[in-house]
């Protein structure tokens, strides 16, 4: 780039890359085909979701009506709604802590380098996969059926889903860990449990905390939604206010949610930065 050629330019034979591989020189027919393919995919999605832009236009007045009725937000509802907001945060905290407590030992079993037996490895992997693949909303529906309405089924749902999400990430962290200190402690005559607590735990602890804080942030978001299926918190209040057409309460609740989500995101990011 900044090398200047002085004197006569010597033309050397340069190794030319195979022209077909160069995207810039690809035949226009291919480009056209890709564009058509992309358009087909987009159009079929529009057909399947029954997209009718004209409905948006005719519905504009209705939207404007709702917006007008939501304004100004009903700040007199702030104090009564503070408790559900608190509940939402605590559902996330409970779910994250319980999730970490269960996920960590499970991850140790589910990591190829620390698992004591093949059977346990596959069992732990399967359990983590089940917890993860079922969405937390579905877990919440199940737990509401099992233990009834309220924040507890929400907390349980987040715990179980967190076990799945945390378990997989932690198992990966453990598998990527430097095995040197573990081998070194093994040769000192230390027992399995001692090796685990003195070499494995201190090595993965910073990653564990980072992942847990990130999960807490995600769980606060989830816990806002879980109220919709009756699992307590601010989501349940939002659903009730909607059903009662109390749009000024709805707008207040949306503001509170916004503050919660952004606050959790900032706090989690700041704490993670301190750990790193």
């Amino acid at each position: 780039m900044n090398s200047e050629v002085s004197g006569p330019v010597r033309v050397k034979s340069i190794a030319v890359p195979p022209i077909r591989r160069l995207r810039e020189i690809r035949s226009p027919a291919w480009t056209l085909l890709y564009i058509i393919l992309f358009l087909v995919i987009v159009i079929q999605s529009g057909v399947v979701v029954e997209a009718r832009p004209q409905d948006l236009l005719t519905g504009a007045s209705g939207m404007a009506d709702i917006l007008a009725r939501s304004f100004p937000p009903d700040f007199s509802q702030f104090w009564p709604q503070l408790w559900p907001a608190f509940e939402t945060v605590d559902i996330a905290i409970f779910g994250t802590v319980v999730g970490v407590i269960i996920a960590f030992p499970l991850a140790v079993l589910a990591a190829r380098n620390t698992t004591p037996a093949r059977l346990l490895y596959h069992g732990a992997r399967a359990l983590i996969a089940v917890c993860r693949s079922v969405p937390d909303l579905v877990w919440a529906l199940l737990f509401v059926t099992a233990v009834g309405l309220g924040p507890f089924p929400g907390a349980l749902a987040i715990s179980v889903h967190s076990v799945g999400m945390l378990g997989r990430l932690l198992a990966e962290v453990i598998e990527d860990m430097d095995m040197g200190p573990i081998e070194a402690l093994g040769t000192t005559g230390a027992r399995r449990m001692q090796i685990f607590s003195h070499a494995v735990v201190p090595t993965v602890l910073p990653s564990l905390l980072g992942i847990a804080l990130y999960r807490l942030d995600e769980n606060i978001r989830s816990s806002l939604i879980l109220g919709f299926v009756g699992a307590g918190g601010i989501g349940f209040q939002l659903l009730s206010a909607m059903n009662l057409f109390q749009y000024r309460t709805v707008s207040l609740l949306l503001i509170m949610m916004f503050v919660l989500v952004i606050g959790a995101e900032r706090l989690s990011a700041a704490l993670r930065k301190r750990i790193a």
Partner: protein
Amino acid sequence: MSDALIEAHGLFMRYPTGWLALEGASLAVRPGEFAVVLGANGSGKSTLLRIVAGIIKPTEGTARIAGQEITRLTGRALADARMAVGMVFQHANLVKRRSVLANVLCGTLGRHRNLATALGMLPKQEIPHGMHCLANVGLQEFAAQRAGTLSGGQAQRAAIARALAQRPRALLADEPVASLDPEATNQVMRLLRHVAANEGMAVLCVLHQPDLARRYADRIIGLRRGVVRFAAPPGEVTDPEIEALYEGTAR
């Protein structure tokens, strides 16, 4: 033979891949002796060390540490027998986020098997001993520092301090200077010889570099294709004998 702390007899090792790493290797290291195993890549020297340390089992043959037949033990009995042998690796293998002293104290865990140490606590009564071991390797002023902040040579010396904290009777070192610069290399080699001479330990060290073996070892053990070709003090080993170890092997 009976007074040797490290003994190996007729070791054969065939890996599952069919590779025959050792073909009847035998050796003995006495207390206070610094023995160096020399050999080319694939000569079986690391395999030999791992068998003596009880990390892997030989196909045939026996290895004893301080009279205990380490090749026959398993589980708890093996963990107990291993306490008599300290080990140093090519990399220091310290837990980087813990302090240097905490890493050294980890060497004493075998002697303190209780609930507190199982839960990650360190044996407090060993702190003076740990500091003594750190002083032995010249790192006492680094005790409170994180292990991750040490240089390569310092980390390797801390690893030796951890092995010493174990109060072993024999010390095994697997290419301990392979990733160190010349100055750190000489420090570590001097330290290993000092440990043998002053603490009366049997030290068995696997090396790549013939010149280091000549300079520091009490005895050089030449290994080629899984067989011990010679075992003699440096003064009695000729250069052609050492060169023969590396001949015809892919390096």
